[in-house]
C-alpha cells in the first residue's frame, strides 16, 4: 500500500462503489415492484377452481395475499404439487408440499346432479362461483360439465344431497379428439 501509483485506482474504485451503492439503495427505497403485475402472474398459475379451500374467497384474493406476503404458497389442494412448484419458481422460493390443513389433494372431479332427486330449490345456483349450474325454482337443475371446476361449493347448500362428485368424461374426450398430422 506504500506505492503511491495505486492511490488513484483505489480512489476511483471506492468512488464507484459508493455511487452505485447509493443509487441501488435509493432505487430499492423508491421504486416498488409492480404488485398488480405480480398478482396477475400468480393468479395465472392458480387453477381457478374458486373453491375457497385456501380460506380466501376465490383464486384472485389468494393471489393478492401471496403477493403481499400474508399467505404461503402451500394452500391450494386443487392445484397440487404442480401449482406449488410453479409458484415457487415464479417467486424464487423453495417448493414445499401442499399443507393438508387446507384439504386433501385429489384428482379433478366435477359435480353431477342426480336429476331424479333434485327438487328444484335453486339453492345451489348462487353457490356456484362460475355459474355452471342451469336451473330455476321448481325446475330440475343440471351441471354444465365443461364449465364445472369441481370446487364442491354446491354440495353444502343442497337440502336433499342430490349432488355428487364424479370423474369427468372430458379428459377422455379431449384425448380421443386429438387430430393426427397426416
Amino acid at each position: 500500500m506504500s506505492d503511491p501509483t495505486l492511490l488513484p485506482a483505489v480512489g476511483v474504485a471506492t468512488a464507484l462503489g459508493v455511487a452505485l451503492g447509493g443509487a441501488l439503495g435509493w432505487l430499492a427505497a423508491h421504486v416498488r415492484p409492480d404488485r398488480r403485475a405480480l398478482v396477475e402472474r400468480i393468479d395465472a398459475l392458480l387453477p381457478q377452481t374458486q373453491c375457497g379451500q385456501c380460506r380466501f374467497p376465490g383464486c384472485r384474493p389468494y393471489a393478492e395475499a401471496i403477493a403481499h406476503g400474508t399467505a404461503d404458497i402451500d394452500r391450494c389442494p386443487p392445484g397440487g404439487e404442480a401449482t406449488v412448484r410453479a409458484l415457487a419458481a415464479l417467486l424464487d422460493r423453495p417448493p414445499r408440499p401442499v399443507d393438508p390443513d387446507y384439504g386433501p389433494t385429489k384428482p379433478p372431479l366435477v359435480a353431477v346432479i342426480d336429476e331424479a332427486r333434485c327438487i328444484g330449490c335453486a339453492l345451489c345456483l348462487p353457490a356456484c362461483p362460475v355459474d355452471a349450474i342451469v336451473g330455476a325454482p321448481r325446475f330440475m337443475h343440471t351441471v354444465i360439465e365443461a364449465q364445472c371446476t369441481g370446487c364442491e361449493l354446491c354440495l353444502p347448500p343442497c337440502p336433499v344431497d342430490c349432488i355428487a362428485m364424479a370423474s369427468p368424461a372430458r379428459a377422455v374426450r379431449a384425448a380421443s379428439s386429438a387430430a393426427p398430422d397426416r
Partner: protein
Amino acid sequence: MSSRSVPHGGLRLDGHKSRPLEQPVLAVPPPRTCILALDQGSGEEAEAIVEPGTRVRVGTRVAAGRGTAADLHAPVSGTVTGATRLPTAAGEGRCLVIESDGRDEREPGVAPLDWQALDGPSLIERLAASGLAGLGGAAFPTASKLAMARAEAVELLVLNGAECEPWICCDDALMRERAAEVVLGARVMLAASGAAHGVIAVEDDKPEACAALEAALVVTGDARLELRVLPALFPLGAEGLLIAALTGREVPHDGLPPDVGVVCQNVGTAAAAARFVTEGLPAVTRIVTVTGGGVRRPANVEARLGTPVVELIAACGGYRTTPDRLIAGGALTGRTLASDDVPVTKGLNCVLAATAADLPARGPEMPCIRCGDCADVCPVQLLPQQLHRAARADDVAALARHGLAACIECGCCDYVCPSAIPLTARFRAARERQRLLGAERRRTEEARARFERHCERLAAQAEEERRAFEDARRRARGDGPPSGTG
C-alpha cells in the same frame, strides 16, 4: 413443368416393395363377423345411428359423420349385434359389430351417378353421403377437403401416389391395376373442387404404375391432367413436402394446402371416388399391403372394412414365423398393433408383420453426442437435437422456438440417430403434453372470466336490493327526509 425445388434431407431407403407386387391384388372373402370401428383413423368417432338388432345390407348407412369422421356404411349384409369398445388400430375405440348373413345383399337404390351432369357443390354432397375418406392414412372426409378447396378457389389438384414409406405398396398395386379408375377419380375431383388442372405425382421407383397411368391418361385424353415423376425419397409423400416439391410453394405448418391454392388427395381415394360414381356403392373396401418377414406370401389384398387383420394374414398364407412386432402402417411412421384381432379401417394402408431382421436394430438409448445427423435428414429443416434437449427439460418456450409444431413425425431422425434416441416418440409426447396444457389453460381462463362475471352480477343484485329497500323505507315514511338515526 419440372421438379422445382430439391427437398431438404430425407432418406433413400430400401423399399421392400417387390414381393407383394409379384402377384395381383387378392380379394379377401367378406368376414363372418365385421367389426366396424367408429373412428376409421381420423381420430374422431362417427355417431352410430343403428341399434343392435338392426338388419343391414352392404352400403346401408350405419353411422353419421361429424368433425373429422366421415359417414360409415355397412360393409356386409347381416345384423348389427352390438356396439362396444374393442381394440382397434388406434388403440381402442367404439365399434359396431355386424354378424354377416353370408348373402352379401346390396342396399336397394344403389345406382351409378351421372357425375358430369352435377355441379360442384351437389357432387360434393353426394361424395359426402358416400362416406369417402382419405385412404392415404389420415381418413379425413374427402368431401370436406373438396368443399374447403372449392371455398378457397384452389387451382391445382394433386393426386398423391408417391407412397414413399418402405414396405407400403397398396397404392402402387392400385395404380398398376386400376389406372383408369385413378384417372376417372381425378376428373371427378377436378369437377368437385373446381381446380383448373391436376397432377398425379408418383415416385420413380414405380415404373409400372407410371406406364399404366400414362396409358390411361392417353385413353382419357383429358388435357387438364398430367403425370409427374419424382425421385424416390422418404418422406416426400407427406402432403406439405409433396406440394413443395411439385409447385415450390410452402404450406405453412399451421395452415392447409388450400392456403397455397392446392388440394391434395390420395390416389386410392380417387379410385374409390371413381368406384362410387360408376357403381354407386359407398366406400366399404380398401386395398391393404400385408407384408414383412412374418407372412408366408406377402401380397396386396382388397378387404372389406371391418375385416380382422388375422383374416388378411390368413389370405396371405398365414404366419411364417411369429413376428416380433405387428405394425399398422410402415416401419417408420406406423403404430404397433396390440393384437391381430383389430379390424381394417379406411386409414389402414399396411399390415407389417415384422421379424427382427426387418426392423433396424436399435441398441439401448445413449446420450446425444450432438453429431447433427438428425438435422441433416430432417425434411422440414428442424434441429431435432435442440428439440430433444428442450423436450427433456420440458421447456415450452424452447420447444416453440425450435418449431415443434412443424414436426411431421416422419421418423427420419430416429433412423439416423447413432445414439438410438427415440426422438419422434419424445416429440409426439411433448406435443401431447402441450396440447393438454393448452386445453387446461383455456379452461382456467374461462373459469376466471366466469367467476368475475358471477361476482359482478352478485354485486349488482345486492346493490339493486339495497336501493329497492331504501325506496320502500322512504315511501313508508311518507317521502319525509331520512331521520338522523338512519
